[in-house]
């Protein structure tokens, strides 16, 4: 075991700098904009340059701190641990035992590419509630990255209790990996054009606008708008359309950049996802960490026969918010089963769902009436002629309720539970019995009268849990599910057989 201490590639100083710059850019723009609008009375006076001076000092400080961070950073391997030493003012050390390392995630940004470097993110098992739990090597050569992986595998293999049950890994002789799934450009386009990114962009715009709400002269704008409206509704409509179009194009481009050359391979019990145009990301998820698989179809995509597959992975850091990992960002519904079957051979993907009884239909929409009746009443009253349109909410909500009831269902066999439900998008979740952390039967007074119950299951997802509800099923079925989950009972379920 070598005790030589390694440094990062010098480019990481630049990356550190750019990273801080990225984080600062929004407040920066806001500050500059506010200054520009607000105190432009005595421009030309020497004091107005002070602000620029301050900006320059901040920039230099950021640059220098980036360099120091790089200078101070060391990593080495000792006693089967990855040891890291770092810190700007305070010197910190972190020792991560190799056996605790769950996965190494690689990212190649635009700064990495020209030098053949990668950023490595070391993910440890669960636990860490802070983002301190993980380590990040900003930029190292690919050779060095392979060395870390090699050290890790060696350390893991040396452990006596993990003696080779099929663990005869020969990390250097990599067999040709076969892509299980590759996203075609056409799919990529459909993904981009139907993504919710449009909404995200708009909410971003709204946030940005709200930052400026003090600065924008609303009075003047209002008068402008009045003129504008006189000018013709057509132009207004056109303007709205153009804004929408631009937002859509931006979202398409962003999705395209993020998901370019999306590919999945499975190797050594790990799923490896690579994607990205400018920043090439490589994410590894150990299969043992996957807690549940879900297929999500939003109504638009359902119409076109497309769906998204998401996996819930346990552990990881809060920093990586994306614990629900999009395994297949977009795929034809008909092609999902063979792919999932290949990745998760133990799960059964062909099955017939048990549906929700018709008499529980009322529970799907009735609760909404509690808020809808007063709202619709008030709107109808205050905005008399047009307010009556709010009454349309009732058939709409009824329709959605019926739709939800028709969609919902579940299937279970000895080892797995499958739940299908719809809030608006249709979701189907597969989970193994051994992954379910707890199960709750929930019965309201009204449900009790109708002799139905809901079942809530929780699996681990990220550092917390993800709950899925089977809504309003027969009381006897709910109890059967509890019995199924109860370890002692060992009930055999022969209610239905898989269909083919």
């Amino acid at each position, binding site marked *: 075991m070598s005790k030589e201490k390694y440094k990062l590639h010098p480019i990481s100083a630049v990356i550190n700098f750019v990273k801080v710059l990225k984080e600062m850019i929004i407040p920066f723009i806001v500050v500059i904009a506010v200054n520009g609008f607000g105190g432009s009375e005595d421009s030309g006076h020497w004091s107005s340059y002070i602000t620029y001076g301050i900006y320059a000092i901040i920039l230099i400080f950021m640059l220098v701190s980036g360099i120091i961070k790089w200078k101070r950073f060391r990593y080495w391997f000792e006693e089967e641990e990855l040891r890291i030493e770092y810190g700007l003012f305070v010197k910190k050390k972190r020792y991560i035992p190799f056996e605790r390392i769950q996965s190494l995630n690689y990212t190649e940004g635009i700064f990495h590419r020209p030098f053949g470097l990668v950023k490595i993110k070391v993910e440890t098992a669960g636990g860490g509630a802070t983002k301190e739990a993980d380590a990040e090597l900003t930029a190292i050569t690919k050779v060095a990255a392979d060395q870390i992986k090699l050290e890790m595998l060696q350390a893991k293999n040396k452990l006596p209790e993990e003696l080779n049950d099929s663990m005869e890994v020969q990390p250097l002789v990599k067999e040709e990996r076969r892509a299980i799934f590759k996203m075609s450009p056409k799919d990529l386009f459909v993904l981009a054009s139907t993504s919710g990114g449009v909404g995200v962009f708009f909410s971003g715009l709204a946030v940005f606008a709200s930052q400026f709400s003090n600065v924008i002269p609303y009075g003047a704008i209002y008068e402008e708008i009045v003129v504008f409206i006189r000018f013709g509704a057509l132009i207004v409509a056109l303007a709205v359309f153009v804004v929408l179009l631009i937002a859509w194009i931006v979202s398409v481009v962003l999705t395209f950049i993020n998901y370019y050359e999306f590919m999945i391979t499975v190797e050594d019990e790990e799923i490896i996802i690579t994607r990205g145009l400018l920043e090439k990301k490589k994410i590894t998820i150990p299969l043992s960490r996957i807690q549940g698989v879900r297929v999500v179809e939003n109504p638009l995509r359902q119409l076109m026969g497309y769906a998204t597959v998401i996996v819930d992975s346990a552990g990881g850091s809060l920093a990586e918010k994306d614990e629900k990992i999009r395994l297949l960002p977009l795929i034809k519904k008909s092609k999902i089963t063979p792919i999932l079957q290949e990745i998760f051979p133990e799960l059964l993907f062909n099955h017939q769902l048990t549906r929700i009884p018709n008499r529980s239909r009322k529970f799907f929409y009735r609760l909404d009436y509690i808020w809808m009746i007063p709202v619709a009443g008030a709107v109808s009253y205050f905005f008399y002629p047009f307010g009556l349109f709010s009454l349309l909410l009732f058939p709409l909500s009824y329709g959605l309720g019926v739709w939800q009831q028709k969609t919902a269902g579940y299937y279970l066999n000895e080892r797995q539970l499958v739940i299908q439900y719809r809030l608006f998008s249709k979701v189907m979740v597969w989970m193994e019995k051994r992954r379910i952390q707890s199960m709750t039967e929930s019965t309201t007074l009204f449900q009790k009268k109708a002799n139905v119950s809901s079942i809530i299951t929780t699996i681990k997802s990220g550092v917390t849990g993800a709950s899925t509800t089977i809504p309003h099923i027969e009381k006897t079925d709910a109890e059967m599910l509890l019995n199924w989950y109860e*370890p002692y009972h060992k009930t055999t379920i022969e209610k239905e057989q898989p269909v083919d």
Partner: protein
Amino acid sequence: MRAEPINKLSKKGLRVWRIYGVFQTLIALLLSIGVGVINFFTGEYIWLYIVDLVIVLIIAYLLIYLFPKVRWARWRYEVREQEIELQHGLFVVKRTLVPMVRVQHVDTEQGPILRKYDLASITISTAATNHTIPALITAEADELRGRISVLARVAEDDV
């Protein structure tokens, strides 16, 4: 029908909940006094005083008398060799099953009021969820915590 879990909470727990209810009612009372004072200086609607008072009385009835009683009567728990089963809820009855294999750790906790009545609450944590049994005699809670942690260690993953 599945049988209900057998154990109930300590009878003293009901008293503690009533005390919590008293505190919550006091907050409501303060708010209503505030409303009354504002009314005195600005509006002076007589009916508002009455509504104010009635609301506080209703809150007192619900929080001090009815809710604790129903909750206490509903609360059941049972710790078996392989699993823990809980039942609780006011309007919505929830029955939760936690297999021993999933239990990660068990904590007991005791606030000032609980301590005065020699009670403790016990929280069972899995990797994703927390489940609390709110009011047990301290000795019983300690014994239970020990038992669960032993059982959780023994329980084997049979899947």
